[in-house]
């Protein structure tokens, strides 16, 4: 086997609109990029198109890492494989009853469609209690009969989900053993397999998601692998998981639920990688697109990971995923004046179609993007692609009529107000995300990407007290870069549920050792160049009587009770400024992550060094008035690819590039670093 790191590596991310690709030849450092339309019906075509557009020789590629939205879309659109459930007698409705909630605090309405309909949820006699002791033995004949019924009803995939299987999986394992010979494929998901934790609704939904997308992901990956092979590819194909790690294509479908959110996760991985290379290891990532904005936290170059993501109302997927929170604000968010005479922005969006007025696709409602256009922040020429050309005057007129008249403002003032309110909302949401994760935003740098992120980042940073903004070299293909730099990663959780003073440290060490060994075994199977294996151990803890968990990172797998107590108290105090010396600590879960660290890659050529100019003046492509804080400023416009490598800029300035616009406000200063990033230092508050 050739050293896989020696050949070219490709990262390809399929998003809702575009399929992005980055190809890196580690030997020469040469980088190739492509952005082509996604092909939703079969994403493989988009991937092949992107490879062709970048001029990749498939035979020369050692490794392709792929981020896909196949599973996310399938769940959100309920385009799922027909799936059946076999469960404990008396509990088939768990998946439909949920946790007794409604979608919003006010408004007594809401709808919910379970992943598996009631007639395909069958019960068999069996029961474990909470300690894992058998209360009722498994009725094996009933298991057999239920599977026959589900097959007759056309089910392709199966979930076996029994109460308390996290405590004792014997009945689930036995049922699977009975059914493997008669079920026509491998698509059997056991409830405890992905998530061995109590809480039957969350575990059941996680298993149901896995089962319902598994056949789809399996087919898609097979098709893609065939296409690649036909094109001459002989190297490895890996798929991004939502935890920011990757797994081999051959194994990914088995735990298909883990690929949900793989796109956003890879963007965060790229941010962690880029930040580490630039010496900024504490980042808030800020990915603003057309309809929504994704935010995540990176501490010490490690993205925050959560096992409690809910991808929509009552749809929890409890496998470890990079904790990406979505805010309902994007370039297409619509502005209006409320009956109380107050300006509101969002949450509804003009989306991509018809989109903002300035897209010229028939949009008529004023949006954030339109406001950016009026204020000179976006270049009117940049929207020439629209079906019908829309003039800036027309956009101004709409702002005047719809917003300006009721508020007593002219078009410019109305646009400035829209941006101010939108930034305030996003800043508030980012603040809530960071404090809910126990972080003060002022201790972070803002990593801005996505089509609209770099346009708003400096203003948000100022609002939040964040001292600097990092705009990567290629904000529009960050997810694809994340695929290339991601590590191999496996996460494990074991419920212990014991007071700390009764925890057996030897047993804990054993649990961690077993998790480490299994992770190392799985990683050992991949043909990818690694520089090291990392093992991270942590405990989920609380004070006896609490329900929320606090994650306590441990220095190593061997640790005593006193040391754990001290660490827990420290983490708790940092989060809540409260000490509770009289209350006992409780250990709920022991978790390990095993990470295969990839060989370091050099991305300094993401912007072609040959294209860079020697001076700032040569990189300038124009000058235009841009509106900041109540006045128009004549601002130079630069072309990003032409900027000298370590350029220094003073705001106000606009930096344009293929896929985004970077705004540098008055009083801010920006510099290019050796990695091709722009670092904006935020000046005094305006």
């Amino acid at each position, binding site marked *: 086997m050739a050293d896989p790191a020696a050949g070219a590596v490709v990262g390809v991310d399929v998003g809702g609109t575009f399929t992005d690709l980055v190809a890196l030849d580690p030997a020469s450092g040469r980088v190739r990029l492509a952005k082509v339309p996604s092909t939703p019906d079969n994403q493989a075509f988009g991937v092949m198109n992107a490879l062709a557009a970048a001029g990749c020789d498939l035979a020369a590629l050692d490794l392709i890492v792929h981020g896909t939205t196949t599973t996310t879309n399938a769940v959100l659109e309920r385009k799922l494989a027909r799936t059946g459930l076999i469960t404990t007698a008396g509990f088939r409705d768990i998946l439909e*009853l949920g946790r007794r909630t409604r979608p919003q*605090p006010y408004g007594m*309405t809401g*709808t919910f469609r379970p992943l598996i309909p009631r007639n395909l949820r069958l019960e068999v006699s069996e029961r474990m209690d909470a300690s894992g002791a058998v209360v009722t033995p498994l009725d094996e004949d009933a298991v057999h009969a239920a599977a026959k019924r589900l097959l007759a009803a056309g089910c392709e995939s199966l979930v076996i989900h029994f109460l308390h299987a996290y405590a004792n999986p014997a009945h689930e394992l036995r049922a699977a053993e009975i059914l493997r010979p008669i079920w026509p494929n491998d698509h059997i998901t056991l409830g405890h397999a992905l998530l061995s934790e109590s809480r039957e609704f969350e575990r059941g939904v996680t298993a149901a998601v896995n089962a319902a997308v598994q056949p789809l992901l399996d087919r898609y990956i097979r098709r893609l692998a065939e296409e690649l092979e036909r094109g001459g590819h002989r190297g490895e194909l890996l798929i991004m998981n939502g935890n920011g790690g990757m797994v081999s294509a051959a194994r990914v479908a088995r735990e298909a639920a883990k690929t949900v959110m793989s796109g956003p996760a890879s963007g965060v991985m790229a941010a962690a990688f880029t930040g580490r290379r630039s010496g900024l290891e504490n980042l808030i990532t800020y990915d603003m697109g057309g309809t929504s904005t994704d935010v995540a936290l990176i501490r010490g170059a490690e993205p925050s990971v959560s096992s409690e993501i809910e991808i929509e109302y009552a749809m929890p997927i409890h496998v470890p995923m990079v904790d990406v929170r979505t805010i309902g604000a994007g370039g297409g968010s619509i502005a209006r004046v409320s009956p*109380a005479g107050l300006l509101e922005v969002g949450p509804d969006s003009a989306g991509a179609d018809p989109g903002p007025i300035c897209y010229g696709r028939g949009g008529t409602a004023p949006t954030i993007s339109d406001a950016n256009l009026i204020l000179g922040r976006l270049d009117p020429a940049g929207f020439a692609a629209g079906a019908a050309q829309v003039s800036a005057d027309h956009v101004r007129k709409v702002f005047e009529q719809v917003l300006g008249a009721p508020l007593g403002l002219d078009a410019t003032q109305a646009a400035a107000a829209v941006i101010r309110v939108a930034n305030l909302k996003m800043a508030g949401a980012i603040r809530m995300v960071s404090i809910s994760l126990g972080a003060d935003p002022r201790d972070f740098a803002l990593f801005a990407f996505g089509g609209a992120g770099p346009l708003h980042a400096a203003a948000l940073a100022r609002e939040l007290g964040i001292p600097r903004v990092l705009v990567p070299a290629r904000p529009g293909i960050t997810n694809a870069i994340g695929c290339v730099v991601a590590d191999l990663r496996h996460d494990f959780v074991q419920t212990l549920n014991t007071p700390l003073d009764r925890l057996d440290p030897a047993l804990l060490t054993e649990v961690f050792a077993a998790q480490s060994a299994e992770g190392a075994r799985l990683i050992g199977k991949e043909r990818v160049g690694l520089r090291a294996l990392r093992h991270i151990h942590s405990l989920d803890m609380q004070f006896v009587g609490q329900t929320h968990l606090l994650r306590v990172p441990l220095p190593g797998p061997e640790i005593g009770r006193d040391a754990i107590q001290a660490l827990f108290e420290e983490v708790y105090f940092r989060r*809540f400024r409260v000490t509770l010396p009289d209350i006992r600590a409780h250990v709920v879960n022991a978790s390990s992550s095993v990470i295969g660290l990839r060989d370091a890659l050099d991305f300094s050529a993401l912007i072609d060094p040959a294209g860079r100019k020697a001076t700032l003046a040569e990189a300038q492509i124009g000058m235009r008035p841009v509106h900041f804080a109540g006045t128009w400023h004549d601002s130079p416009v630069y072309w990003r690819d032409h900027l000298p490598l370590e350029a220094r800029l003073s705001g106000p300035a606009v930096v344009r590039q293929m896929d985004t616009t970077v705004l540098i406000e008055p009083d801010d200063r920006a510099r290019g670093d050796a990695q091709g990033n722009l670092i904006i230092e935020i000046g005094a508050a305006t």
Partner: protein
Amino acid sequence: MSLDPITLTVIQAGLQQVCDEMDLTFSRAAFSPVIAEANDRSDGIYAADDGALIAQGAGGLPVFVGTMQESTRILIGMIADGRAAPPQPGDIYIVNDPYLGGTHLMDVRFARPFYRGGRIFCWLSNTGHWPDTGGAVPGGFSASATAVEQEGLRLPPVRLFKEGVLDEEIFAIIRSNIRVADQRIGDVKAQAAALLVGEERLGALMDRYGDATVAEAIAELRRRAAMQMRAFIATIPDGRYPASAWIDSDGVVDAPLEIRLAVTREGEDLRFDFSGSSPPCAGPMNSVRATTLSAVYLAMRHIFPEVAMSAGAFEPLHVTGIEGTFLDAQYPRPVSGCAAEVSQRIAEAVFVALVAALPERVTAAPAGTSGNFALGGTDPARGRDFVMYQISGGGYGGNAGHDGLSNGCSTIGISKAPPVEIMEQAFPVLYHHYALHEGSGGAGCQRGGFGLDYEVELRRGSARASFVMDHGRFGPQGVLGGGDGGVNRVTVWQSGVPHRPAHLSKEQDIPLAPGDRVRVQTPGGGGYGDPFRRDPEAVREDVALERYTAEQARDLFGVALTGSPPQVDVAATRTLRAARS
């Protein structure tokens, strides 16, 4: 007005952010699962002179939407006339007296004066539901209490924190009077920490925009919230909209209690007249004034969720005629059912009254009970006592757009139910089923959602079961021709013999031995519109999914089905539906 609308929006968002951060801090640091998981708490900012609501956290429990400004208003009055000690910076008052702007005793309010330039600029306050405040039964929900003293410890406003320091003596009194006292210090610290966060964040906001500007914005936001509510009220056709809703019984005297309501539009204001409602009752199904007002406000907010949460939004809403009724109970009437049950029935009356005026916005009646089942006993395997609560949801009402949601949380709550697996880990019980309450959705063109049906067995030791629920006698009301939702049903098996509470939904201290079981079937939501106009295909699907039987399809919806899986018999359906009209 000198303030521009943008600064106004900016300050509004800033105030909201302060409250949301207080909510988050409180929930995350709290011990009581009622607060930490069920978010049975709320945080807000209140005016210095009259306690009027300035802003309140978006994730607060709806029932507190109107109570906290009442509570703060009364506290301010008591300080003014010397009934409460004067405040110093850093003080935090504690109060849980229901008659002083509260709900039930378990809802404990903290209030902290916020100083600016040596004067109180506003109050920061929060409410948290403590798992116990003493009284006859663990948890405080006694179905048969006849005086508030039996319900728990009642605290007038006293300064639990003095200049930032916890008064250990007052806390010692509280500790000696409540159950599971050792964890309460955690909740007290969490509740105080939330107010401290609020103080820091509000201070930063005011430093940035200036005290005068913030004060002006607060006044203007209040005017605008009133304007916004009036704009919505203007969409209600002129008229008088009457409705009644009933409580099964008060737990002591087995007779229904009536909420009689007439909503009248008077210009751009709405009058909610409760004259003729039942007099105060002997048992705990009384409401106090603050809770009654809050129930009306939260019902209107369910109907118009767009209106900003500020005292201004309540100004056009006038509640009258409650004096002398069970909706304005006075000391020492027992009140433990006011927030959990009576408030939901008041909201039901508002919905049923206004659905004719606002058919696109208002739903049929939701389940409307908190379904409170408490099991207290001894677990010999662990050698200690336990108290288990199962609070359950039910179906929501059908509405113009959709069928009602199944197993939603209460009208006045936003909480999640605990998983069966967690309950079985913590308590000596085994659930036999946890399922959809089949047939419980009220028939309608859009049917009601379905309730919950669970059965739980005591495995060891001994225990006593208590129930404070409602809608056992009358189902949640259907509207515009829709049928009522299925009623709440409680069955207790003692040594295999079934027992049903005399009051149907309420009884206290039923002894259970190992093997004894409790089954609870919670209400479905009311139906919306004529069930004979429901799409026969939707009826067929409900039968195919075993939510209704074929007989129910025929009798309730006029749809004839044949075969298995069922198919619509079009001709027979036409005949059935024609025969009725």
